[in-house]
C-alpha cells in the first residue's frame, strides 16, 4: 500500500479541523484566531497541491501561489487592524469588540 491522494486529503482534513476548532475555542485572543486562519489556508493549499500533482495539471500549484500572496496581504492588514484595536481598547478579546451592535 503506497501513498495515494486519499492520504493527503485526510491529512489536510485533520489540519483544517484542528484550526477550525482553534478559531472556535480561542475567542479571548484574536492573535491566535489569525494564526488559526493561516493554518486553515495552509491545509487548503495542501489539498490544491495534492490534486494538482496526482491529476498532473500544474494550474493547481499556480493557484496556491496566488493564495499565498493574498494570505500574506491578509496577514499584514489583519495585524495592522489588530494593532489599532489594541491601542484603542487595550484588549485582544473578541467579546470586547461590540460597539457596532445593531
Amino acid at each position, binding site marked *: 500500500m*503506497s*501513498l*495515494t*491522494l*486519499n492520504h*493527503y*486529503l*485526510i*491529512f489536510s*482534513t485533520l*489540519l*483544517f*479541523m*484542528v*484550526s*477550525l*476548532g*482553534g478559531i*472556535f*475555542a*480561542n*475567542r*479571548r*485572543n484574536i*492573535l491566535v484566531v*489569525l*494564526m488559526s486562519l*493561516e*493554518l486553515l489556508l*495552509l491545509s487548503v*493549499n*495542501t489539498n490544491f*497541491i495534492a490534486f494538482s*500533482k*496526482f491529476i*498532473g495539471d*500544474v494550474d493547481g*500549484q*499556480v493557484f*496556491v*501561489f*496566488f493564495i*499565498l*500572496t*493574498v*494570505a*500574506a*496581504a*491578509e*496577514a*499584514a*492588514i489583519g*495585524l*495592522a*487592524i*489588530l*494593532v489599532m484595536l*489594541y491601542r484603542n481598547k487595550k484588549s*485582544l*478579546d473578541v467579546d470586547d469588540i461590540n460597539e457596532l451592535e445593531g
Partner: protein
Amino acid sequence: MSPELLIQILFYLFGALAIGSGMAVVSVRNTVYSALFLVFCFFNVAILWMLLEAEFLAIILVLVYVGAVMVLFLFVIMMLDIKKVTKSQFKSGYTKAALLIAAAMLVELMMLFGYRMKSQLPADELIRQGESYSNVTEIGMTLFTDYVYAFEVAAVILLVAIVAAIMLTIRKRPENKQIDASKQIHVNPADRFRVVSMDAEKGNGEES
C-alpha cells in the same frame, strides 16, 4: 529499505508532527509559543510538499511564510506586550458546543474522503518525474503565459496591503513639525502678501 517505504515513513512522521504542532498552536496559553509552534508546523508541511514534488512552493512557504509573515506576527506579539496570560476557553459551554460541531464535520469529511469518494478519486500513486524535469520552469511558464493578468492583479493587491497597513498604524506625534499639504495648496497669495502704494517719504529731517 526501499525508497517507497522511506517516503511513507517520512509522510507519517512529518504529517503527525504537523498536526501535533497545529494542536499546540491553538491550545498553548502563551501567544509567543503559539507563533513558534506555527513556524514548526509550516516547516513540516513544507516537507510534505517536498514529498509531493512541489519544490518551488515548499521553498516559497518557508521563505515567505516563515521568513516574512511569521516574523511580522512575532513583531506584533512582542510590540503589544500582553502581560496577563489569558485562560483557555475550552471549559465554557458555548465552546464545547462549537467543538462538538467541528468534530462532527471532521467525521463527515473523513467518511466522505474515506468511503464515498474513494471510487471517484484517482487511486494510482504519484508519477515521479525524471531528473531533467523542473517544477520551477513548469510553474513559471504557466504563470507568465496563462495567468499573467492574475499575476499583475496579485502585485496590485500587495501594493494595496502595504498602503493600508502603513496608513492604519501610522501614529501622529504632537511634537512633529509636519506641514499639512492640502492646507498649503489652498493658501491664497493675497492673504499673505499685499502691495501697498504710498507716497515717497521725505529724508530724515535734512534740508535739501
